[in-house]
């Protein structure tokens, strides 16, 4: 969602938006709107079971009924409704974790970059150590210790995700601090607080937004993987990773339960990646890698 906000004024200035981006934005909007308005959009209650009449119905396009467009799972629950409701969890986790990670990374990056000294050394050492652990492994271990749950998941992802933000923003702040206008402001005796708010913060905003799109995507994938391993949001709450994990048992008989939630994940991640790449190229080509 943040990416759309960022791309809006640019569109007017640049004039042309590639078709891929328009399609991506449209798809992403559909995913977001249906997740937000899930109770109005979903054809059925995602938790309503019917073991006798509806168990493992195939999707409509594979010989099923249009009453259950994407088929049902082993408990007779409507798959489309579960995927729509699952989007709520995934997007909520992605968004809030991104906000936490972005905020932590911004504060630490600015502090380390602007003030330097022991603060910088300590934070960057911690970042080094944390980066030695694969992100997903760290999340798995912490979730295992804390126990599954929505709030735990958001906190774990948010707190473990700060490193990339902090590193990039720190190096950017180092550059900004060296700029003549900032040095001039310092020489004129402008208060540090004013410099941070007026010069440093505006200088890192676009980078922060671009980093946020990539973090968001990483969190969506991590949430799905953790829920898949049973360490994310516990059932019966539908989540993309969770539905997939339940469907794994019936994979041979009912491929749709495994395949379709993955399509939702793929589409979300792909569209955000595409839009993120595009915004990055417009705003900040230095971040290309």
């Amino acid at each position, binding site marked *: 969602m943040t990416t759309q906000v960022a791309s809006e004024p640019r569109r007017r200035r640049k004039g042309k938006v590639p078709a891929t981006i328009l399609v991506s934005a449209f798809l992403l909007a559909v995913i977001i709107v249906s997740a937000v308005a899930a109770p109005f959009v979903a054809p059925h209650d995602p938790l309503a079971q019917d073991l006798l009449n509806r168990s493992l119905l195939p999707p409509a396009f594979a010989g099923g009924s249009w009453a259950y467009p994407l088929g049902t799972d082993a408990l007779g629950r409507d798959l489309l409704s579960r995927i729509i409701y699952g989007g709520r969890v995934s997007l909520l986790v992605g968004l809030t974790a991104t906000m936490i990670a972005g905020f932590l990374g911004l504060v630490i990056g600015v502090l380390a970059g602007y003030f330097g000294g022991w603060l910088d050394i300590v934070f960057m050492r911690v970042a080094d*150590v944390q*980066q030695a*652990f694969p992100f997903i492994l760290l999340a798995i271990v912490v979730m295992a210790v804390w126990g599954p749950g929505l709030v735990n998941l958001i906190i774990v992802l948010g707190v473990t995700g700060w490193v990339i933000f902090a590193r990039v923003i720190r190096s950017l702040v180092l550059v900004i601090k060296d700029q003549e206008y900032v040095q001039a402001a310092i020489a004129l005796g402008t208060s540090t607080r004013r410099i941070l708010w007026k010069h440093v913060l505006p200088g890192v905003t676009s980078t922060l937004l671009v980093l946020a799109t990539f973090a968001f995507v990483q969190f969506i994938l991590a949430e*799905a993987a953790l829920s898949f*391993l049973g360490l994310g949001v516990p059932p019966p709450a539908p989540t993309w990773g969770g539905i*997939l994990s339940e469907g794994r048992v019936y994979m041979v008989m009912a*491929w749709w339960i495994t395949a379709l939630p993955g399509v939702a994940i793929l589409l979300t991640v792909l569209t955000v*990646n595409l839009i993120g790449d595009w915004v990055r190229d417009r705003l900040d080509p230095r971040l290309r890698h």
Partner: protein
Amino acid sequence: MLLGVSFAVFALSHLSGDPVSLMVGPTATQADIEALRQSMNLDRPFFMQYAAFLGGVLQGDFGTSLWQHQPALGLVLERFPFTIQLAAAALFLALLVAVPLGILSAVYRNSLLDRLAIGTSLVGQSVPGFWLGLLLILLFSVTLRLLPTGGSGSLLHLILPAVTLAAFTMGRIARLVRTNMLDALNSDALRTARAKGLREMTVVLKHGLRNAAIPIVTLIGLDASSLLGGAVITETIFAWPGLGRLVVQAISQRDFPLVQAATLCIAVIVVAVNLIVDLSYSFLDPRVSG
């Protein structure tokens, strides 16, 4: 660096406050808990415990697995080669596909091939690894019956997990090679090389690729971590007996000494890969020294 890593691993398993309460069953009495706590030295202050843990690690003692009742280090070392094998196979596969693809799409910029390559790379980067793995099993093992669904033992067992794990890195490397080749192809050095009358093929491969080498190696260092993270998921799906699956198994058994040992081992691999990457810079680019 490794000291920090060992401390992090140790602190991680103490996040819950008390590992004992996680290990004992619901029927344990207070006395049982106290006894276990004392036998594991958990009644001592935190830093004393860490010192004892570190002392043990330095002597190669990672504690005893609560689940297998064997030294944790032995179990970890048993699995270690499998993870290295899988990660190396995935990396090799990723490079094998991504480097030629990146070069071709840079040379034939904006062609149909280029567009297809970019699209595939992006999909590869966006696809959830565990989902891709399950779909591959469904297609190649269940439907076509060509490859085993999981386990290890032969080269055939390695194919599906390696492809699954390679997808993400493959996409990243292909796009990286493409952008670097584009920069290189437009550089003065290559214009000179062409002007000298060298064949286009030589120009592209010899001069272009050399420019892309350092970013590729850097990316491998950065991706070592996500490759091993992806291995955790991939190994679980394909029942590949590596470190990642060991961590997941140990977690479900609440076997924290084993989790500690395996996590530490993975972190050490990441640190080692990055060290090798740093050292390789001076080989790839003589301007970088020390």
